[in-house]
């Protein structure tokens, strides 16, 4: 058995692998944001069928583990004859996961805008999209920033699960290095520091935004 010591080279490898974690997170943010927005709109339009479909999607994704979603996409699509790479499967599953949670967060923010604002704007003759765009969303976006940023931390940590379908990001790289060094404590401590340094700026940003929002809404 070929064993080697955990050294500087390995740390570099881990830092190098971090870019895949970052890339996957960015894809999940972007794709999840896009679809999440679409599901938010479907959820609040005054069309029952669309509300139900969107809400069913959100419930299913929120009610199942991300790990399971990864399996379903990776193995399920293969059974259906679509051979998806670990990359694609990871991206699809994370986008689905992110979109469902963002849709629920954003729906809450939109519906938190007091009903009189909806009534005042529709009484002026604004249609549903016009009033969402000009009146409701500008106010909802402001209150949605802290919980949105907070949730992105969950997404970054969620990317670690993609290691189980063989996507070589930070956690998977750590596993591989551990296989040849057998120094789990050192290896996993290093990636813990890396994850923390990715997430901490976001959590503190979220907290700061929340504080600022509280101050300004108190006026």
């Amino acid at each position, binding site marked *: 058995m070929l064993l080697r010591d955990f050294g500087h080279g390995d740390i570099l490898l881990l830092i190098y692998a971090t870019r895949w974690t970052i890339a996957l997170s960015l894809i999940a943010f972007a794709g999840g944001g896009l679809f999440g927005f679409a599901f938010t709109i479907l959820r609040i339009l005054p069309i029952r069928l669309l509300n139900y479909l969107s809400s069913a999607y959100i419930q299913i994704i929120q009610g199942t583990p991300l790990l399971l979603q990864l399996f379903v996409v990776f193995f399920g699509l293969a059974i259906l004859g679509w051979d998806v790479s670990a990359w694609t499967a990871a991206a699809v599953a994370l986008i689905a996961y992110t979109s469902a949670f963002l849709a629920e967060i954003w729906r809450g923010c939109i519906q938190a805008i007091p009903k*009189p*604002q909806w*009534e*005042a*704007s*529709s*009484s*002026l*003759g*604004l*249609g549903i999209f*016009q009033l969402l765009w*000009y*009146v409701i969303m*500008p*106010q909802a976006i*402001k209150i949605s920033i802290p919980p949105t940023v907070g949730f992105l931390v969950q997404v970054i940590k969620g990317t670690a699960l993609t290691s189980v379908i063989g996507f070589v990001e930070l956690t998977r790289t750590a596993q591989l290095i551990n296989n040849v060094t057998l120094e789990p404590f050192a290896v996993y401590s290093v990636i813990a520091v890396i994850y923390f340094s990715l997430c901490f700026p976001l959590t503190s940003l979220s907290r700061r935004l929340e504080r600022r929002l509280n101050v300004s809404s108190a*006026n």
Partner: protein
Amino acid sequence: MSLVQIEKVYKKFGDLQVLEDISLNVEEGQQIAIIGRSGSGKSTLLRCINGLEPINQGNIHVDGDLVNGQKTNLKLLRQKVGIVFQSYNLFPHLTVERNITLAPTVVKKFALADARALAHEVLRQVGLEDKIDSYPDQLSGGQQQRVAIARSLAMQPKVMLFDEITSALDPELIGEVLKVLEYLAQQGMTMILVTHEMGFAQRVADRVVFMHEGRIWESGPPEQLFASPETPELDSFIRAIL
């Protein structure tokens, strides 16, 4: 046909009958005051006139258009019916000017320059031209309510609905809002007001409608209604208020 024509309207909230057999015609240029205890259905009636609340039975026409029809274009209807609420409901993220120009530009497709000129004009009418660049939270309640009236005026409605618009105001701010209403009445604006300001109703309204338990209990010219109420309900209401 009257500008606003309400025929045999019934409305329920669940099991509660909030409007019962309401019929009321409002001619162009008339000012109607609706009075009554809270829970008598007066605000609900007002909200039915611009389609904010659906009705269960009967018909409401505004300027010849059916409000409660399946195919009613509420967007178009609401351009003819302005409403001002008790809680002002200005858009807090927009300046006074943008609060006013939003609907004309977005709904009526006015050019921004025209809408701005319009904003100046309506703000002049409510005496707040100098506040055009302010945000709502920089204004007093009375000023916010006057901006809300200006915002509604900018859509050049055929009839304006006022839903207890002075009830949320400090007593010393009520006067400035009533003054604007009186000015509009003098200009010949068709108005339906739900109000607790009996003195004002008496001074400005052509006709006063007393609602009780979801019905129009009594109605008539203010001097007659206030001086010699026919029903004990109106009598006790007037005594309680004065």
